[in-house]
């Protein structure tokens, strides 16, 4: 009988008013999808639709089949509400700069 190595990962999902990071100990070689299922985060957020959600690890989108490493944080993302182009256009119309640093730095410079 071989001993299967395990790794510790986190699974996280966030709404504006409620955010959750679940720690879960999974077998080495577990995928993003596997960790999400094992974490039980679907039970906490019943409205979560994995089929139509994008996922990633620490701010970088990945596939459901990506194999996890120890310490990874699996993240389930939500789509944007605003249209980035629209926001940019609106800010330009209002005369606000869009470079890094937004209004505060732009005004100062």
């Amino acid at each position, binding site marked *: 009988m071989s001993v299967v190595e395990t790794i510790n990962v986190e699974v996280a999902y966030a709404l504006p008013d409620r955010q959750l990071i679940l720690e879960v100990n999974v077998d080495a070689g577990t995928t993003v999808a596997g960790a999400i299922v094992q974490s039980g985060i679907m039970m906490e957020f019943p409205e979560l639709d994995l089929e139509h959600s994008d996922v990633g690890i620490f*701010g970088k989108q990945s596939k459901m089949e990506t194999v996890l490493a120890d310490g990874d944080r699996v993240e389930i993302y*939500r789509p944007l509400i605003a249209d980035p182009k629209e926001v940019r256009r609106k800010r330009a119309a209002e005369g606000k700069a869009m470079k890094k640093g937004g209004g505060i730095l732009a005004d100062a410079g």
Partner: protein
Amino acid sequence: MLTVVLTLAIIAAVFGLVLGYSAIRFKVEGDPIVDQIDSILPQTQCGQCTYAGCRPYAEAIANGEADINQCPPGGETTIIALADLLGVEAKPLNAEHGVEKPSKTVVRIDENVCIGCTLCIQACPVDAILGAAKRMHTVIESECTGCDLCIPPCPVDCIHVIEVEATLNTWKWQAPEVEHAAPRPSR
């Protein structure tokens, strides 16, 4: 004569062995004073002390490079605790590094404006923002330390500071507001 020499030699050998053994058995990894200082610091990793994070600041204090009054998030409480630990005189916060906030704050992202640029995620020292390129960014409030480092990089100014309602764990005595005291009623 020989007995005396022998006895002393044996005693010396025994003490030597005990000391040698203890040095190995009770060896302390790292610098315990740095750990103690680090545990007092608020772990906001905000960099206001001019060091890259709380740990580097703790090391600098331990080495005598930094003063104990450079941590605005920790404020007076932290300075007093550090003064206690290090046996030095407490002093007021160095205003060059900022001012102590009256209450704990976190940030929140305006979801109607966020364009998913990831700049705030890169700025966050404690990975408290969940999101990816062109996906909604959300602040995980339990992780947010209120360092506000994510606010300047945001190109659409959609990150706002909100005060955290005091719980039993975060509540502290309010300092009396002397400057804003109501004027005495004139007679």
